């Protein structure tokens, strides 16, 4: 056993080493530098001897506006993730189990393709759809000329639409990969044993695809919470996020330490939520 362990250790090191060395040099060391920065009294741009303070973290407790921004950001992330799951999972199911042959291939490619368009351009494209006199407005009035003016731009729903549009392919891809791996014979077996469609889905298909659901949710929730570009373009002042405030600290006010402190608070909140949900998810998968 000990010999096998040693051989395994070599394999584990060889397999994980390169990826984690890379991550250390480009993520963890720079983030450590950033953490250091969040305790600095003055911005590193100012040539002064380093002095340390907790005031940037205290700013979060003292100022309710930052707490409100944090809540809004987390809520936005949850809404976007749930929308992506509700819309994306049935699409992945259709792709994996209903559509067959060359059609499936074509539609899989169609789902993947939007990735290749730039996020900035896609976000801006929605302004052309959602604004007053935009495509949606004109389409509605073409069908129903008496309808009230349609202007969704600079609103919370616009931000959600934009973010769901950005992240939906992630959910479809991860769910599809999991669903597609479920052997059809397993489904046939369940059905021949008398499982109805509802039970088949609840007891067999959904639990087996849970790894994909969780992967997709994590890939969407986290960046959606930290988003600032989409809220800025589609929400204006109607959907402020903590991400926008953090961006300002680096681009407008040049208060790097405050931006760093707010970032670490956001990271802490996201990590706490993921850690809180992890045991429940694992239990669900083990109970398979």
């Amino acid at each position: 056993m000990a010999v096998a362990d040693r051989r395994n250790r070599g394999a584990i090191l060889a397999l994980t080493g390169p990826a984690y060395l890379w991550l250390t040099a480009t993520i963890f060391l720079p983030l450590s530098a950033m953490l250091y920065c969040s305790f600095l009294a003055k911005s590193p741009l100012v040539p002064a001897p380093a002095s340390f303070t907790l005031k940037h973290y205290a700013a979060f407790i003292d100022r309710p506006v930052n707490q409100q921004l944090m809540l809004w950001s987390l809520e936005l992330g949850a809404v976007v993730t749930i929308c992506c799951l509700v819309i994306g999972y049935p699409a992945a199911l259709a792709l994996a189990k209903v559509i067959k042959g060359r059609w499936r291939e074509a539609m899989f490619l169609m789902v993947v393709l939007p990735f290749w368009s730039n996020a900035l351009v896609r976000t801006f494209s929605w302004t052309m759809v959602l604004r007053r006199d935009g495509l949606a407005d004109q389409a509605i009035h073409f069908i129903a000329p008496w309808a009230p003016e349609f202007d969704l731009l600079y609103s919370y729903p616009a931000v959600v639409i934009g973010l769901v549009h950005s992240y939906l392919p992630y959910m479809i891809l991860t769910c599809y990969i999991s669903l597609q791996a479920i052997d059809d014979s397993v489904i046939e077996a369940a059905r021949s044993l008398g499982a109805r469609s509802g039970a088949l889905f609840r007891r067999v298909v959904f639990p087996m695809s849970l790894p994909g659901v969780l992967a997709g949710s994590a890939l969407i929730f986290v960046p959606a919470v930290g988003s600032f570009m989409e809220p800025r373009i589609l929400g204006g002042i109607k959907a402020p996020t903590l991400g926008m405030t953090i961006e300002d600290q680096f681009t407008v006010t040049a208060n790097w330490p405050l931006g760093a402190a707010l970032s670490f608070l956001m990271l802490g909140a996201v990590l706490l939520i993921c850690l809180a949900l992890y045991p429940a998810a694992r239990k669900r998968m083990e109970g398979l």
Partner: protein
Amino acid sequence: MKLGSALLAAHLWLVLAFLYVPIVVMAVFGFNASPLYALPFQFDLVWYRELAGNTKLIDAGIHSVGIAIVNTIIATALGTMAALAFARYQFRGKTVLQLLLFPPVAVPWLVIGTAMLVFFYWIDIKRGLFAILLGHVALSLPYVIVVVGARLATFPRAVEEAAATLGATPWQTFRRVTAPLLAPGVIGGALFAFAVSFDQFVISYFLAPPGVTTLPVEIYGAIRKGFTPEINAISTIIILVSMGALLLTARFYRFGGER
């Protein structure tokens, strides 16, 4: 069940429509004569002619594609290796390593970008395409590991054992059994890696020296000066080129996994 299947298929079509509405809008306005995106539509290639003379935008496009390709190769290789280690071995510190995948995704790109800028400055890695590549691979790795890992989690391990029992060497088992089963996950991971890099704006923005930019950085600059249909034009070209590349890949590899 027939009705359910029909509804699911209809839903998929609606989703595709949702995904493509803004992209089609974007493409259409690239062919519209009006610089203010005004309707009615008037077909004109003026924005493509402008583009042909815009060497800055073309250079930026070449940088973006090059970085994305190299990034995809490196990130897919390293990420798949790590995902295999997680799926195959139980070892101390595994949970820690898996949790360490969160920071690159969880920390706002803005912070990672500025943090890289500061750190790279300290260890004397100059701003430029190499620095941008370093950052893109780091951001792509977690996506590859998670996507390939999701595939491995539903991987029928018994098939490999059966192959070994039937006398296949480890290499034969890998080539004939493991690799084909793993392929959809790896391709999914590679597509993520390419998308992450090609779409990446914030990291590139902080790591690009003046004059050497990637497409998103160049486009962002253009948006700040005023959005012109020229950007629609170059985006349309990019979509067509990548669509061609993907379709070419699909000719040699069946994405659906259908045998």
